[in-house]
């Protein structure tokens, strides 16, 4: 295989991994939509302190996802962020509010009061999940942009990537195709938050908290499955653009994503394994009264499913950012990537990834050996 093509594929794989891990870690956001309406103060405190030790991981993964996309596929960065301005700005505002809220919500002198910070967390929980889902869905259902490189020489109006829609991303938020994935992500995150609480919290209350989380898992899990099936139904019946040897779009292909799942059989198999693991994690996590490990099955399954979504979006000569305004402007992993040299350099850097994953896993394990309990929250000077 040509080295450049190999590295473009490799970097799409890394983007896929970061995206998939990010969707799993959105259980933090899902949890933020749960505790605000919890009337039991102890339970609320347990949930917040359980999430409070993990929020930086999802936040950091989002930042690294952005940085890695910039380095490997800069044309996506300039087209999507500069075009769907409002979509990304709303996402970013919600994460800005999240970043201070855990630390400040219960500190004396926080000016705005605990409820305000909890509302910030709730907004970030909803907006973060739904709009990140919308942003990913645009990789299938497209955006209204044009890319004309020679604009660079038009001094009065030199911008290469232009969003044609006046909405600058707002229109994408109200596209029901995109929203299907947005709500899928939201209810998946809420389901997994319940599973995470079951795993991480010992409420010492005779199992009432755990039972409530299991009910939450079931209720959110059912809604998630409905949205997920609807999204997959739309996705698998959708047409999309196929690119040619130049890396640019040459034709529209019916059932493009279904074809991708079939022609790249290993992607289809991964999808099935992922779906089974998610369903097993949710099903057993919700229905088995003493089972606490549902998050691991569901989490790993989520990573696998999301990986396949990125793969069918980008591999097999598919436009991963289809343009609704001008098909030839659509972005593929061939026409939007960094140069061979930069991808090579970044690939050397990426060898550090196993080390990073290793220490994150070790620290996670060390910190989670002792579950969050009412006593541990009380004893901890830094509790939220």
């Amino acid at each position, binding site marked *: 295989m040509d080295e450049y093509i190999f590295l473009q594929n490799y970097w799409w794989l890394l983007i896929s991994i970061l995206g998939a891990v990010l969707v799993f870690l959105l259980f933090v956001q899902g949890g933020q939509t749960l505790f605000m309406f919890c009337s039991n103060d102890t339970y609320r405190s347990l949930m917040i302190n359980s999430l409070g*030790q993990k929020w*930086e*991981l999802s*936040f*950091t993964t*989002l*930042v690294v996802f*952005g*940085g*890695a996309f*910039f*380095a*490997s596929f*800069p*044309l996506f*960065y*300039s087209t999507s*962020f*500069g075009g769907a*301005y*409002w979509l*990304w700005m709303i996402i*970013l505002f919600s994460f*800005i*509010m*999240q*970043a*201070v809220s*855990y*630390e*400040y919500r219960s500190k004396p*002198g*926080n*000016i705005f009061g605990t409820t305000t910070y909890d509302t910030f967390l709730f907004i970030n929980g909803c907006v973060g999940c739904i709009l990140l889902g919308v942003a990913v869905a645009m990789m299938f259902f497209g955006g209204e942009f044009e890319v004309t490189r*020679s604009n660079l*020489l038009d*001094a009065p109006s*030199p*911008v*290469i*990537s232009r*969003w044609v829609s006046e909405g*600058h991303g707002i229109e994408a938020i109200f596209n029901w195709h995109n929203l299907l994935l947005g709500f899928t992500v939201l209810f998946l995150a809420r389901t997994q938050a319940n599973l995470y609480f079951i795993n991480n919290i010992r409420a010492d209350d005779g199992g009432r908290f755990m039972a409530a989380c299991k009910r939450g898992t079931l209720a959110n899990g059912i809604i998630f499955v409905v949205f997920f099936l609807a999204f997959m139904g739309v996705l698998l019946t959708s047409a999309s653009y196929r690119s040619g040897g130049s890396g640019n779009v040459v034709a529209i292909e019916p059932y493009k994503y279904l074809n991708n799942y079939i022609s790249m059989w290993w992607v289809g198999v991964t999808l099935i394994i992922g779906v089974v693991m998610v369903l097993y994690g949710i099903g057993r996590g919700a229905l088995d009264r003493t089972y606490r490990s549902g998050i691991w099955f569901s989490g790993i399954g989520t990573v696998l499913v999301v990986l396949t979504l990125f793969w069918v979006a980008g591999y097999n000569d598919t436009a991963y950012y289809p343009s609704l305004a001008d098909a030839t402007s659509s972005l593929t992993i061939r026409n939007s990537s*960094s*140069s061979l*040299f*930069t991808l090579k*350099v*970044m690939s050397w*850097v*990426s060898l550090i*990834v196993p080390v*990073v994953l290793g220490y*994150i896993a070790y*620290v996670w394990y*060390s*910190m989670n*050996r002792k579950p969050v309990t009412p006593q541990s929250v009380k004893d*901890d*000077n830094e509790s939220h």
Partner: protein
Amino acid sequence: MNDLINVVDWSRAQFALTAMFHWLFVPLTLGLSVIVAVMESAYVRTGSAKWLALTKFWMKLFGINFAIGVATGIILEFEFGTNWSNYSWFVGDIFGAPLAIEGLLAFFMEATFIAVMFFGWGKVSKRFHLTATWLTAFGATISSAWILIANAWMQYPVGMEFDPAQMRNIMDDFWAVALSPVAIHKFFHAVFSGWTLAGVFVISVSCWFYLRKRNEAMALRSIKVGGWIGLAGIVGTLWSGDGSAVDVARVQPMKLAAMEGLYHGGRGADLIAVGVLNPSKEYDDEQEPFLFETKLPNMLSLLATHDLNGYVPGINDLIDGISIDENGDTVKTVSYAERIAIGKQSHEALRAYDKARAANDTAAMDKAAADLKATFQYFGYGYLDSPSDAIPPVGLTFYSFHIMVLAGGYLLLFIIVYLTIAYKKSSWLTNRWWQWIGIISLVIVYVCSQAGWVTDEVGRQPWIIEGLMPTRAAISFISSGMVQLTFWLFAAIFTGLLAAEISIMLKAIANGSKSDYDSLPDSPSAETQSPTQSTKS
């Protein structure tokens, strides 16, 4: 065209706003993380409950500051896409790499180990905890390294070539980017300035303890630790600042001329110690540049070239393309009018290349590519209308530079004096004058820190990438109204969060000052003692 300029101005204003807010918190994170790690090291070595209390107190303040630093930081990375879309394509191949490496190498380290730092007490061993604290400090430092590499590259673009087929620059030498002298000096200058700021912060808060007559022993010990880190910081800042000045003279002479309000340069140039600029001065009139000034003879030449008689060009010299060669003879270089003409030829060559490529005319492509290569050095000038467009705002650059230098000199003196008092005359700290000077100096260190970045960023205007792309060609296809709205949203949200941060910080300081520090044992307690630990503190 008018809206183009408005979009450029508002996008610049928004980036400046968000970056300046972020830089309120970053230097304290950089320095305080080291101070806390030193204190915790002392605790682990001695087992002293006093060191533990000190560590936890400053760590709490570190955490309050860190959270808002993270909140204000996320937007900066994404703003390159949202507001500087053209820039992101034109140089994303080079510029994206440091940002991605920063995330991979530094952010995960910080995010992972800061959780241990705050929630790991009692869950992990003391040594693991200490390692986590040091790794958090290390993560913050290498994070800044990659950001400063990225920033330095914008000021001194190296290690790339232009690809006319894709109309973008591509990297061809990673190490030239990562190890450029500008990046190295910038890294040390920014990190050491963070140590300085944190040192002054610790001294300042400790002086407030003295003012309120609370926990004076705790305050004294803090001044000693903060003072040493601050001293290392200010000395390192001065050293790296000297290196940066030479870099600026070499690669951004127009910035240096603006920093000094120097219109007509020469050999043995004088440094302005204090001065008031003539606000009506234009580069092409004969008015005096200063209403009032005090000069240090030959010092600008020394600063810029490390030679008392070195040549430093002024704004007019640069615009007219006048320089002095190694024999001391006046020589003509490329004037700015010529640069603009060559830049426009470069645009024409690229246009010709694009046409030839569309027509599949290889011979014409080769010719256009050769023309482009010969003229590309001044590609960015092709966007300018007149030489005056290439002059940065002299007033803001001059004043911010001089405020930074004067404040830096004051801070060196301040830290030396307070460190000396802490060791030799600690009773002076009970005097109100010393207390108030200590407290007020916190404002000076923040002003100094911000002024440094204002000098650096305003002084390089109109360039987003020196000589290659002015800010006006780097923007996104958005309206000025959109950017205005997000500007005011950022202004409102960040101001609100800053108010909350200061309020929480003040409460935490007040609570810390009331803690029962004096009764804590300074030797290992039964709980913390282990046979191998030293009892010295």
